[in-house]
């Protein structure tokens, strides 16, 4: 196995085009290294991008948040820009593994591994995240939901590098959050993860809702039927009735017969109500 340490995006895409499907990108290594240690078939080349400065950093560009592919989960969990503009993402990053994992795991790696249990993905989905891909032949932009083709499968071409993630920040009279249910209180994968972003009118009517889940057998995804059941709902006494949305969520998000599906079906409506309550409490200046 060749180990290629690259110093720039240009070098990275050169190596990717040379190795094609035989190459594998190494960023934080939290997936790659365990696979290597388990003795799974190693790639012909490991292309280490961790030294590319240009892939770091969180910034605000023209009203969207741009997050470099190498930004670590620990950084997402602690950066004030993320906390203010993308609280669900900050909460999701905190929910991953232990500090040790968060300190090396990168957002780009999380996205490209496309695990069904990836906590950060629902949080990015409710921020309508767009992925900036680059290859030797040019640049490409793709929505996250379209990018996620299956658990562990993405639309990333072998010669492409995920360079940055652009996410839509929270707007006015909006709130969002991410909650995770694992088997244990830490260091565990999500049995269910749920992200919700809500916006309401000054009179307290929900005018936008995005709901995304992870933890099933499908890759993380939005649940339009549940979103539609919330939009147009009037807050009553500062509360949002999520009964219909919860039912939609349960049937749409946990249709499988997997071992834990029954539990997911039970938890999702309850989790949505809890998250909605939290979000509504976080939206100030709304009359009803």
């Amino acid at each position, binding site marked *: 196995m060749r180990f290629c340490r690259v110093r720039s995006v240009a070098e990275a895409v050169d190596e990717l085009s040379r190795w094609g499907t035989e190459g594998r990108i190494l960023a934080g290594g939290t997936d790659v290294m365990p696979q290597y240690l388990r003795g799974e078939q190693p790639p012909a080349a490991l292309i280490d991008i961790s030294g590319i400065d240009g892939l770091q950093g969180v910034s605000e560009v023209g009203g969207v948040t741009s997050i470099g592919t190498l930004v670590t989960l620990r950084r997402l969990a602690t950066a004030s820009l993320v906390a203010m503009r993308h609280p669900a993402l900050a909460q999701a990053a905190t929910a991953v593994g232990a500090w040790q994992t968060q300190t090396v795991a990168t957002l780009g790696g999380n996205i490209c591994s496309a695990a069904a249990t990836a906590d950060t993905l629902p949080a990015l989905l409710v921020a309508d995240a767009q992925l900036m891909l680059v290859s030797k032949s040019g640049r490409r932009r793709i929505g996250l939901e379209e990018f996620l083709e299956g658990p562990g499968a993405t639309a990333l071409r072998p010669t492409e590098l995920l360079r940055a993630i652009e996410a839509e920040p929270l707007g006015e009279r909006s709130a969002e959050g991410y909650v995770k*249910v694992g*088997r*244990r*209180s*830490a*260091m565990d*994968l999500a049995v269910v993860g749920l992200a919700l972003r809500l916006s309401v009118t000054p009179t307290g009517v929900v005018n936008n809702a995005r709901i995304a889940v992870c933890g099933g057998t499908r890759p993380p995804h939005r649940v339009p039927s549940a979103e539609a059941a919330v939009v147009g709902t009037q807050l009553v006494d500062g509360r949002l009735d999520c009964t219909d949305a919860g039912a939609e969520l349960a049937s749409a998000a946990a249709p499988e017969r997997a071992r*834990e599906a*029954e*539990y997911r079906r*039970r*938890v999702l409506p*309850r*989790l949505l*109500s*809890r998250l909605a309550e939290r979000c509504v409490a976080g939206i100030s200046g709304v009359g009803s």
Partner: protein
Amino acid sequence: MSLLGSNPARSDADAKLRGEAVFGADLARPGMLWASISRSPVAAGRIRSIDSGPALKVDGVLDVLTAADVPDGRTGVIVNDIPFLAADYVAYEGEPVAIVVADNRAAADAGAQAVDIDIEPTEPVSTPEQALAPGVRLVHPDWNRFAVTGGADIGRDGNVVAEVVHDPGDLDEAFAVADVVVEGTYRTPRQYQAHLEPKMALATYESGRYVIEVSHQYPFRLRDRVAQMLGVAPSAVRVVGHHIGGGFGAKLDVSLEAFAALLARRYRRPVRMQHAALEERLVAPCRANALVSIRSAVSGDGTILATDVEIVSDSGAYANNGPALSAIPMFVFGSIYRVGTARIRTRNVYTNTAPTGAYRGVNGPWLVFANERHIDAVADALDRDRREFRLASLARDGDLMRNGQPLEEISILREAFDRVDELAPWQGAGTGELRGVGQAAAVWLTNPMPGHATVKLNEDGTATVITSATENGSGAVATGLRQIAAETLGLAADAVTITMPDTDATGYDAGSQGSRTTHVVGRAIADASAEVRSQVLDRASQMLEAAPEDLTIDDGVVAVAGVPAASLTLGAVAQAATWSDGPITAGASYVTPTPPHDPACATGMLIKGWPTPTYHLHQAEVSVDVVTGRVTVDRYVVCQEVGRAIHPDAIAGQIQGGVAQGLGFALSERVDLDHGRYVQRTFKAHGLPLAEDVPKVEMIVMEHVDPAGPYGAKGAAEPPIVPVAAAVANAVSDAIGVPFDTLPITPEAVLEALEAES
């Protein structure tokens, strides 16, 4: 100043913290071979053929052994039912079928995978209920030909490995006059020990003897079992113990050692074996899954007139210790609360699953779970406060256990209820929506089995204790036994060294089990140390020209009381003795006598009495998350009686650890079986509790000295696990208002109950 009740450093702490301690799994020898086991991939079936060819093609593989190459016949602890290697049929997934020996580990593992085992699978007998169903296939068609070595008639019959029946015979009348009859069925899963260091063995063969180096809780049993399996005298086997990376009961019996020993002789080279992570799980002697049904006849005033208990526990494919453990219900029902006339029947049955075995507090967690859930159910049926009902039903000093043994100090338990209430008052505990409180009590034994120690005074005035007591992590050997020797000899704790186990060098020791080390070996050490002390005083009295009774020994110095100038170091005394009468040494043995009991109390009882009982009350306060169904333990209080606390920090560690393991059993650990095969196969799927899932346990340690124990000490390490699941299940049932009689109490089960409730 007394060393007892102080917390000197463990002798192994420094080496373990620095990573210098050599555990069994660290052992290597020049020129050693590696061997690996090919195991049955199915729970039940007939072996059609075994093709070693593919394994022999693996580079580095030397040979493949099957049943034809190893001793025939079956061996075991109580019933000789285990073949050396499966020959005609396999009885559980993971059963050894072939051994592959190679010149390196990777080759041995690859070879073991490559052996082509052709088995015609049969539908496994997968649950104890199924094993007892009429007309069911027998797990061992030849069960009647297996020799029983462990004692009297144990009631074997087909799939029934053992049956213990206590039947006083006049229950019907009580049930006829009862105002209330309360019935419950209590179901518990297996529990996996989840120790970190895998089982291993290193065997050599020299001068006609086998030497086995291992990390093992019970080297003498291992010696005897290896000898039994190889068909040689126990004296032909020497077992040398090394640091143990966790055992919790899983390292009490033979596992890989006889295979390694056989190969060491065959190749005249050291042979090393070690379980891979999956093998550990597949063949671990898990705590048995069990089903307990209790029916009680209760009068309106709350007196339990009669209790009918029916128990089925899963032995798995072989008997192991199951027949002996089947006596334990006799020491739980009626030993804590008065349960009236009791009929107790326990059946231990064969299934096509991995053999179950010892896990800390054998049978205790599920028996106490059933007992305490049932007491809650009776209290609820009578609309009585659960704590008040417990106190009213509590046994009294002089009451007899079901084996006829008097409960001499059960009033300690009454005191425990008071002490817990002072710290965490029952009134007001666990109140509020979806919050609850539960209690559970236990009377647990201190294992009585034999121990021996030799104490020698070294020529530099330090002392060495020579024993095969094993340090299984609790500190009983690394500090407790050393404190006892030092206290008796007048030495500082760090002036006492203690040896690692070696069956050639020491008297018999019954291993690290049932909290016995401090009590039994400690007593032997106290007696031997007293004899050494007496020899020191005799010699010093000549040297100092003073009467022995006028001498004191403190911190290694012998002095004439009141005359500080007239003194000698212990080193000077030891040297003088060595070169005149000879070295100062003494040995002592101890076995706890079996308590008085009625030998006719039941049939099939291999454990007759409940020696050196200790007393335990646990109280759990929980809250339930209405959204996720998760149970959080908000407060956990343990009141435990220990005789005398030799090393309070070590006891605290055992309590905290036992509660953590108990919480895993109650709430999160999964050891599910599906058609005889384990469903969860990794630590990730297993669900051990993490630090965040375990509250800081509040502890009350009560001392009531036991005259037979060293300085009054009983046992302390094992029982903290015993009442945990019961206390938690009672608390969760209280929080939700729905009985939780099945473990584990998963978020799924909680949500189901909440939905049923609303």
